[in-house]
């Protein structure tokens, strides 16, 4: 390139091109967003009087964290915690086992269209229904107790693991799998050798994450009668035993932190 050519660029301005090129579209989108947010805040009704009265009750509750009572309801608390842990672990194992074939079916790069659509539909249904709603339905079918909670958590695990694992499989390096396919392997062997090594670390990480979120969810499910420590927590609240409730919440926090730590160890180990 000669000097004469480059000279023409002296003083030429440059700015990063905007994400939305059309200025009318860009500015109208910005204005609509701002108007929407302002309108949303304006229509929110807040009863400040009620909030002020509630402050005292809230303060009581928070203060009770300073004197958690682990002892009075020790039997109920420990039974609830163990039930929650069992529920969470069983639901994770069963949920992950079911979601692996569904994830394989829901990965566009290795699946056939009809199977893909069916698997994506199962995942969508599982994700659309909140745990509490499923739990209410399961309690209606199976009655009160941890069975309803276990089925609820397994069901929602399928949506979570299925979706994220399918996306991981779709991101896999295709050539590695092609190399396996070119040796004359069957479809199952191609999955086992070509894809599984690629998605396994992610699957383990997701399963560990799901174990601790299943445990957290299990404490909510008790509120609708689906077993676990949530039932104990609910009873404590309705008896105004805030110190017992505080004890339960503290135990949940500690266990979640421990699970989180365990999962980070395991994820580092499988890299």
């Amino acid at each position, binding site marked *: 390139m000669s000097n004469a050519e480059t000279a023409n660029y002296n003083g030429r301005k440059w700015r990063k091109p905007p994400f939305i090129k059309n200025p009318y579209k860009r500015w109208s989108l910005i204005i609509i967003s701002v108007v929407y947010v302002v309108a949303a805040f304006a229509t929110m009704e807040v009863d400040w009087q009620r909030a002020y009265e509630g402050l005292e009750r809230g303060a009581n509750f928070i203060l009770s964290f300073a004197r958690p009572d682990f002892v009075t309801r020790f039997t109920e608390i420990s039974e609830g915690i163990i039930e929650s842990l069992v529920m969470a672990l069983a639901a994770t194992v069963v949920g992950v086992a079911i979601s692996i074939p569904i994830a394989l079916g829901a990965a566009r790069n290795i699946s056939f269209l009809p199977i893909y659509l069916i698997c994506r539909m199962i995942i969508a249904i599982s994700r659309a229904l909140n745990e509490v709603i499923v739990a209410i339905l399961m309690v209606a079918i199976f009655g009160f107790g941890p069975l309803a909670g276990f089925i609820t958590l397994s069901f929602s695990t399928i949506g979570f693991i299925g979706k994220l694992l399918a996306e991981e499989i779709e991101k896999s*390096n295709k*050539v*590695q799998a*092609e*190399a*396996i*396919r*070119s*040796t*004359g*392997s*069957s479809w*199952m*062997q191609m999955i*086992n*050798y*070509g894809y599984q*090594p*690629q998605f*396994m*670390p992610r699957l383990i990480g997701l399963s560990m994450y799901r174990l601790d979120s299943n445990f957290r969810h299990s404490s909510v499910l008790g509120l609708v009668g689906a077993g676990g420590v949530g039932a104990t927590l609910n009873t404590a609240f309705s008896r105004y035993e805030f110190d017992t409730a505080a004890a339960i919440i503290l135990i949940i926090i500690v266990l979640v932190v421990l699970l989180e730590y365990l999962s980070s160890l395991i994820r580092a180990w499988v890299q």
Partner: protein
Amino acid sequence: MLRLENFTKQYATGDMALKGVNLEISSGQVVALIGPSGAGKSTLIRCINRLVEPTSGSALLNDINLTKLSSSALRKARRRMGMIFQEYALVERLTVMENVLSGRLGYVGFWRSWFRLFPQKDIDEAFRLLQRVGLDHMADKRADELSGGQRQRVGIARALIQDPELLLVDEPTASLDPKTSRQIMRLITELCTERGLAAIINIHDVALAKMFVQRVIALRSGEIIFDGSPEDLTPEVLTNIYGEEDWEATIKQEENGNSENGEADKTVKDK
């Protein structure tokens, strides 16, 4: 041994990658396939073992028409065609030994391969091949711990353990330095001679190709425009294949024989 008749591939986008290629390769013959990027070299060898489905025409391996095979018969046929890839295409999280043994997947059942219980004669052969390519001490290393040249050697062992009659080699040296490139090309051609294998080697580096093969085929826009011995690759022929450029360095390269000082062609190649 391999005969392509009116072999055609049209991609879904409408691009004609191969326009009626006719080609015959006899048993034990090693052929270099050259041509500019996008000429259809990769597509051609991927259509032979149907990693990419050809649109029309036929590919006959020992008079079996590969394009008409059912999926199980195709898996059997693929066992006789070893493939070597540009980016090695090793499964990175598997060990060297698992990668080599994956070449036997077409011969062993799913559960044996799942539990990595390969027949002892396969394991013996895997160790023999690793020794032949100089990596027997690396058997339990993970593939992603190896250097580029070592990975390609594992790739070669994986192709050879299939007990193939034909090697499909896709840019084996494109990711390697000049010296390793020569060693890998030498290894591939030596092994072909030892075992009487035919091979199609896609290669960018014309000078390197001329050093190691007796027959060169050139593709341009999906058509064969040259088929002859390396000596016939005159500047006029190369201009016809790649376009106008000074080809003297590339041609002189070959006269330098095995001296390892050959980067002169790089600038031309990367044009």
